[in-house]
């Protein structure tokens, strides 16, 4: 289990020392982490939740690493997206590409420079994500959250250029202040409960005004970091101005980190405080994100901004989990539905950003108006974009469909029809903005194909593979749901305790 953190950390440090070998080191990491996740999957299936005491010190004194179904799912998604993005990035950073919008070609040494910097930071990001998903106490989660933020900000800044740099700086200030709010909340919880360990907090079942303030502070910080409406304002510029592989990592994985902590906090540590008012409040914010993000996506003129606003909208669906999971009946359904959606969105959104990166590379711009007929010059990217869109809209048999179907069923079982309406409207709006891009892709096919640069084959295949994965996830929903339930007794019980009082 510790290998999941140590392997990327070691290779990241090595990649700083010998930047020339960054790519090779990333592949070593991918193999080691892949093997470790597979091994962990076997252990979890046979023995249930696994706990690793770092340095042999137990929970109250030392730091515990823990893996359950939810953590393992997140680790799997991270490994999958990480490997795909690494494959894409080998050629993206190696070939001298047009990274920013409408920027002239840059000298070769700057591209090499970027290649040298990408790999160590990418590996640090991977380290931070793995550590975050394995952490079992809220202070450790704070540290990993900060590591994640630093790596993400640096990756955004990697694009160079004024737009990307100021987006990165804004991202950093927002992220830091959000972390401080979270840390203040951690302090309050410690003052109240005398521990920061998640299982011990769950055992205490405390409540009181100080704890409410603490949870409010922590939640405020986390939803800012997770870019939940109305705290999403930093996300579109940061995600749209980053290099394509970075955008894919940020949208697919980084924003899911704080969401994961939020789940741990509310469902595991303080399930007793999860009152209907709180959950409906989260639901309202989620619904706001779905509607506002989708409408903004429809209005964007640049492809990458459209995809970034779509992330804002899709994050909203995840937060519908809270009102649907904590009511009587169908809670488990909502739980696996939302996490299914999380996995499907990670694959689909990474595919979309990588495809958008190809389009930017080949046409030299990403203005949606000027994209007529790109399906001819980039058939595979257009297909990948369409497939990923299929999953975002939620058409069968995609993973997005399976997730939304479960959420819909949960909402109907509980008679919360207003969420059903939001889910359906969100799907229609997503169809509209995906169609907006695809109509440009498949019209004026007779015109001249505007190929400015040849594209390495791996950069065409990776987004297509990810999009296919997003679609095929729909067939794996049963297995994923079982993994979540078997591995996560604490969380499942928190949901079930509410179902059968």
């Amino acid at each position, binding site marked *: 289990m510790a290998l999941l953190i140590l392997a990327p950390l070691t290779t990241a440090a090595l990649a700083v020392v010998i930047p020339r070998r960054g790519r090779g080191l990333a592949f070593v990491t991918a193999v080691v982490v892949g093997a470790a996740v597979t091994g962990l999957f076997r252990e979890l299936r046979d023995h249930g939740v696994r706990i690793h005491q770092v340095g042999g010190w137990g929970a109250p004194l030392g730091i515990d690493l823990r893996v359950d179904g939810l953590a393992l799912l997140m680790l799997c998604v991270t490994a999958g997206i990480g490997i795909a993005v690494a494959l894409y990035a080998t050629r993206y950073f190696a070939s001298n590409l047009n990274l920013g919008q409408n920027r002239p070609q840059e000298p070769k040494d700057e591209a090499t420079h970027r290649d040298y910097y990408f790999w160590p930071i990418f590996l640090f990001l991977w380290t931070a994500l793995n550590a975050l998903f394995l952490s079992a106490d809220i202070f450790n989660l704070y540290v990993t959250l900060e590591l994640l933020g630093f790596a993400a900000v640096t990756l955004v800044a990697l694009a160079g250029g004024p737009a990307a740099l100021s987006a990165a700086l804004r991202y950093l200030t*927002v992220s830091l202040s959000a972390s401080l709010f979270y840390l203040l909340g951690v302090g309050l919880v410690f003052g109240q409960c005398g521990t920061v360990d998640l299982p011990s907090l769950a055992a205490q079942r405390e409540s009181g005004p100080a704890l409410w303030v603490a949870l409010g502070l922590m939640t405020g910080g986390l939803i800012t970091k997770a870019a939940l409406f109305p705290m999403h304002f930093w996300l579109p510029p940061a995600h749209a101005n980053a290099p394509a592989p970075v955008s894919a990592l940020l949208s697919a994985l980084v924003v899911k980190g704080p969401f994961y902590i939020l789940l741990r906090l509310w469902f595991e540590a303080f399930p007793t405080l999860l009152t209907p008012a709180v959950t409906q409040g989260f639901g309202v914010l989620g619904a706001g994100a779905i509607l506002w993000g989708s409408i903004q996506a429809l209005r964007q003129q640049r492809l990458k901004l459209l995809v970034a606003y779509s992330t804002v909208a899709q994050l909203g669906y995840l937060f519908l989990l809270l009102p649907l999971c904590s009511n009587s009946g169908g809670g488990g359904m909502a739980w696996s539905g939302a996490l299914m959606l999380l996995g499907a969105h990670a694959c689909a959104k990474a595919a979309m950003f990588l495809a958008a990166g190809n389009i930017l590379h080949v046409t030299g711009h990403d203005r949606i108006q000027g994209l007529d007929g790109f399906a001819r010059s980039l058939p595979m990217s257009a297909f990948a974009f369409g497939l990923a869109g299929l999953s975002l809209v939620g058409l069968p048999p995609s993973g997005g469909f399976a997730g939304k179907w479960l959420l819909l069923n949960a909402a109907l079982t509980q008679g919360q029809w207003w969420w059903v309406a939001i889910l359906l409207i969100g799907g229609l709006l997503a169809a509209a903005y995906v169609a907006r891009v695809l109509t440009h892709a498949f019209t004026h096919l007779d015109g001249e194909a505007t190929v400015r640069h040849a594209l390495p084959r791996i950069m065409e295949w990776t987004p297509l593979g990810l999009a296919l994965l997003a679609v095929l996830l729909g067939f794996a929903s049963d297995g994923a749901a079982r993994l979540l339930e078997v591995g996560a007794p604490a969380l499942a019980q928190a949901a079930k305790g509410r179902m059968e009082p």
Partner: protein
Amino acid sequence: MTEIDHRVYLAASAIVFVIGFYSLLVQAHVLRRIMALNVMGSGVFLFLIALGSQTPGPVPDPVPRAMVLTGIVVSVCATGLALALADRVQDTTDRCEISEANRHTASSDRKSGIEAEHSEGSAS
């Protein structure tokens, strides 16, 4: 005596934190914002230290101290990264203000609204 002391520190930490957050929202200059973040951080650390002395007996609780130490390391790194980034931004744009950063959070107090063309918002 000690009881009063630690309450004073708790109140002071809250005030420091709020001052930091307020100037983060109000100030447009990057350096001032970075300093505001540091002030916020100091508020949090003071709070944690005050919590540590809350426990009865001569020996204060070591856990909040360990947290503060970790927090200080993180905040030094954060400041370094922020300063490096700010330097790059100034090199490339000749400006040292974060454009439109507080558009959604403190629109009434914003000093400069001129960088609208850089906003990634609505119909640009």
